[in-house]
């Protein structure tokens, strides 16, 4: 069989013609092409972004005023739970896998991903997992409503989570397998398929950050799968992992969950760092400042992510030694994260900057992510966290690190690479309108939540005391504007795919972009097959060397 395949390939190689994609819908189902799969991932993530966003709109509508207006408290809890699960596992993570699929082979001079069939399988398994989860919305007893963290005993309680519980667990299994396969594929591609002259320390930072993220995924997804499987056996087979009456401990679950959960939040932010480090130098027309320290900072953050998990549990009742250790370890994260922010600032310093939409989103990312980092530093101070924990201050913190950070960078990546992928230019005016609407409304949405949390509003409540009314209303107004503004992005994506401004984009797209990374040396739009022979010149120290 393999001989036949080899012969078949040789035959084609001799004829020197590309085979294009399969025709019709089947192309998208059976495709093993990294660009097609990248597109699938990105479109799926975009769809889920709107599904999860719709749930956020329900939450903000109910919280617009005190009192009960639209939804039952249990459904409200389902919305907060599902909003988180859909956004984390359906939108942000798949979007970055989509970017990895498109960009990593292009950036390292590889013809495709190392394991193309597995690539297809991991995408469709993701779809299956998300559909399984979404199906619980239509059950009589409702979708899971014990929070995305699935804390026992609440999640095991028959009067709280009905029939949805095993569905959510099996969905996590599928999503986990999908992520692990994706991660294996990325690691195999980066290690084996780089252009021969590209050393590890020549790789673009996006490739580096994804390589490190992939290791995090492989390390922690099985832990999460294990934890939810223990929930399953506790519920259906009468084990007592998390039941004190049977000798277990509900807090044990929290330790296992956050051993997964903390690296998980870095899985959503490390590739973000990579994209920012790719975009900022192009528009500053300078090489990235401190390339090596960026790599080391990323690796340090990834390592630290494994040893700080219990800072999510300061009030759970830990021994004082544990409290202090997790406080110190968490504070240390500020150092490598600071290095990254300083490096981006230094990259802009004395540059020759222009402010197209991708750059605007990237600058907003640096500023607003840093604000999320500041509140993170505040929360690392354990005694203060005894006040902040489980309040809207926390909600504000992690939304700053996820929405104007991860999501903004995904938007930036879209504006940055869509012209390359489609060969069409997006409408810069509408792009900038989208940016300004987003950046203003996201702050109106999340900044007041700091005040709410400090004033004493707990998170995950469907109704609140009167003194929280004003800021909730302002936050909701910001939320509605932010939600509506994202329809502009949808319009721009569709418009760009269908021809955009009609202006023919050059191979480089952005001025001197080809100095920074290999994909800009390819034609626009990128042909269906690229780098069938690896490139000879690769960027070193992040600038293409003219050997």
């Amino acid at each position, binding site marked *: 069989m393999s001989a036949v395949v080899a012969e078949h390939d040789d035959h084609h190689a001799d004829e020197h013609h590309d085979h294009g994609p399969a025709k019709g819908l089947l192309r998208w189902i059976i495709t093993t092409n990294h660009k097609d799969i990248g597109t699938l991932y990105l479109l799926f993530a975009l769809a889920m972004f709107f599904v999860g966003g719709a749930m956020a709109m329900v939450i903000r509508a109910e919280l617009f005023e*005190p*009192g*009960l207006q639209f939804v039952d*408290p*249990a459904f409200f*809890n389902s919305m907060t739970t599902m909003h988180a699960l859909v956004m984390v596992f359906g939108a942000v993570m798949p979007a970055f896998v989509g970017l990895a699929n498109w960009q990593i082979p292009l950036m390292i001079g590889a013809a495709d991903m190392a394991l193309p069939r597995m690539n297809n399988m991991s995408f469709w398994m993701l779809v299956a997992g998300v559909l399984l989860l979404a199906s619980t919305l239509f059950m009589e007893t409702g979708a899971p409503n014990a*929070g995305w963290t699935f804390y026992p005993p*609440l999640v095991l*309680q*028959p*009067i*709280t989570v009905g029939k949805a519980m095993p569905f959510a667990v099996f969905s996590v299994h599928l999503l986990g397998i999908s992520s692990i396969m994706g991660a294996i594929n990325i690691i195999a591609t980066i290690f084996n398929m780089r252009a021969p002259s590209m050393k590890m320390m020549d790789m673009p930072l996006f490739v580096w950050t994804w390589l490190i993220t992939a290791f995090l995924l492989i390390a922690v997804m099985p832990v999460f799968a294990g934890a939810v499987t223990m929930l399953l056996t506790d519920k259906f087979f009468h084990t007592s992992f998390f039941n*004190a009456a049977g000798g277990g401990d*509900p*807090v044990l679950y929290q330790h296992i969950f956050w051993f997964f959960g903390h690296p998980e939040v870095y899985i959503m932010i490390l590739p973000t760092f990579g994209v920012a480090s790719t975009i900022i130098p192009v528009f*500053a*027309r300078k090489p990235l*400042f*401190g*390339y090596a*320290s960026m790599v080391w900072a990323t690796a340090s953050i990834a390592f630290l992510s494994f040893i700080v998990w219990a800072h999510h549990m300061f009030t759970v009742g830990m021994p*004082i030694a544990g409290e*202090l250790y997790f*406080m110190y370890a968490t*504070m*240390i994260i500020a*150092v490598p994260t600071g*290095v990254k922010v*300083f490096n981006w600032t230094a990259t*802009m310093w*004395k*540059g*020759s*900057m*222009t402010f197209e939409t991708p750059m605007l989103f990237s*600058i907003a990312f640096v*500023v607003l992510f*840093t604000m999320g980092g500041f509140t993170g*530093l*505040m929360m690392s101070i*354990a*005694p*203060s966290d*005894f*006040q902040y*924990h*489980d309040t809207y201050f926390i909600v504000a913190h992690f939304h700053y690190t996820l929405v104007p950070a991860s999501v903004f960078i995904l938007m930036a990546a879209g504006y940055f690479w869509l012209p390359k992928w489609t060969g069409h230019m997006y409408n810069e005016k509408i792009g900038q309108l989208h940016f300004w609407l987003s950046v203003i409304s996201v702050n109106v949405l999340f900044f007041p939540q700091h005040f709410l949390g400090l*004033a*004493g509003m*707990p*998170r*995950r*409540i469907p*109704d609140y*005391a*009167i*003194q929280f*009314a004003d800021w909730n*209303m302002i936050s909701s*107004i910001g939320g509605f504007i932010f939600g509506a503004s994202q329809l502009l992005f949808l319009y721009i994506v569709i418009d760009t795919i269908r021809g955009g401004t009609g202006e023919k984009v050059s191979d480089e797209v952005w001025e001197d972009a080809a100095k920074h990374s290999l994909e800009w040396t390819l034609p626009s739009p990128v042909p269906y097959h690229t780098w069938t022979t690896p490139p000879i010149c690769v960027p070193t120290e992040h600038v293409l060397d003219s050997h």
Partner: protein
Amino acid sequence: MNKAKQLFAGLILMALGLGTAQADYTLNLMKGVTKVSNDIYDLHMLILWICVAIGVVVFGTMFYSIYHHRKSKGHKAAQFHENTTVEIVWTIIPTLILIGMAIPATKTMLELNDVQASDMTIQVTGRQWYWDYKYLNNDIHFESHLDEASEKVHRTVGANPHTVPHYLLNVDKPLVIPVNTKIRFVLTSADVIHSWWVPDLGWKKDANPGFINEAWTSVDKPGTYRGQCTELCGRDHGFMPIVVIAMEQPDYDAWVKKTLEQQKQKPDLSDQTREQLIAHGESVYLKNCVGCHQIKGGGVPGLIPALTGSAIATGKWESFDGFLRAGTSKMPKFDKLNGKEFAELMTYVRNDLGNNVGDVLQPKQTALPDDDE
């Protein structure tokens, strides 16, 4: 800082036409009324100002660069891409700042953790969805539920919460403590994980089923301090507030005496009219049943059975009574209610919530011999 923020908030509110009528908003952490809560407030302000200072330097540099180093101004890009000295400096300075922060934080953490040498102990048990307080030094023991006014409004679509004083932050029986006394709390739960938080005391602590957590406080000044459960504990997580009243020692002693006397009182088993029974029954229902069976007795489809038309609730009252006292694997037993409450509750459930059995149950009928104790 606080002034500036107040001003900023006022401007936004004015712009939105919300007016200054609701000026009761807070922007910052409250200082609270204990030494620890004040220490925590100081830590919070210190780290906040450090963050503001770093932010001013970093964002200042960035925006200077964004303004001056732009192509439209003809700025030519420099091509430097590393500087070891600078990189070492901006690794070491944050490290030093963090060490500086860690020292006071450690001190406060140790203080927060020190439950030794307490003057009295209160056991706090979280339950779906109320708190249960037990004073271990005397025999005071009571439940603390959301007040009835909030209970009715938050369960009614479109009801106006502005009419309820301390909406969602009021309880029927507050926790009463003396001032300037080191009080140790032991916290646990009877069902799922809850978390006990009164911001003015400076901390929250989880109540875990099957385990006991400790915490302590010593309140400096008399007053009423309000808080809420802060760990998601099911559908009524948002509706189990905490109210702590701190009193001067003599007032507290008087309260203890009065409460102990009330606890010893036998329930009044005299007959009531049907209307009285139903009205009192509603109060019992709102405290004990409404969380699951809902305000109109409809239950939750697929999870909680409805009481409207329920065969058990509307069948023979003796078997309904037995069912309530025994409980099931899904429903807790309610043997904590006395004969009077049973009569009121059953009369209410059988003649309201869409049921119309038509009978009237009197306390004397439903009281067991030991209910009088």
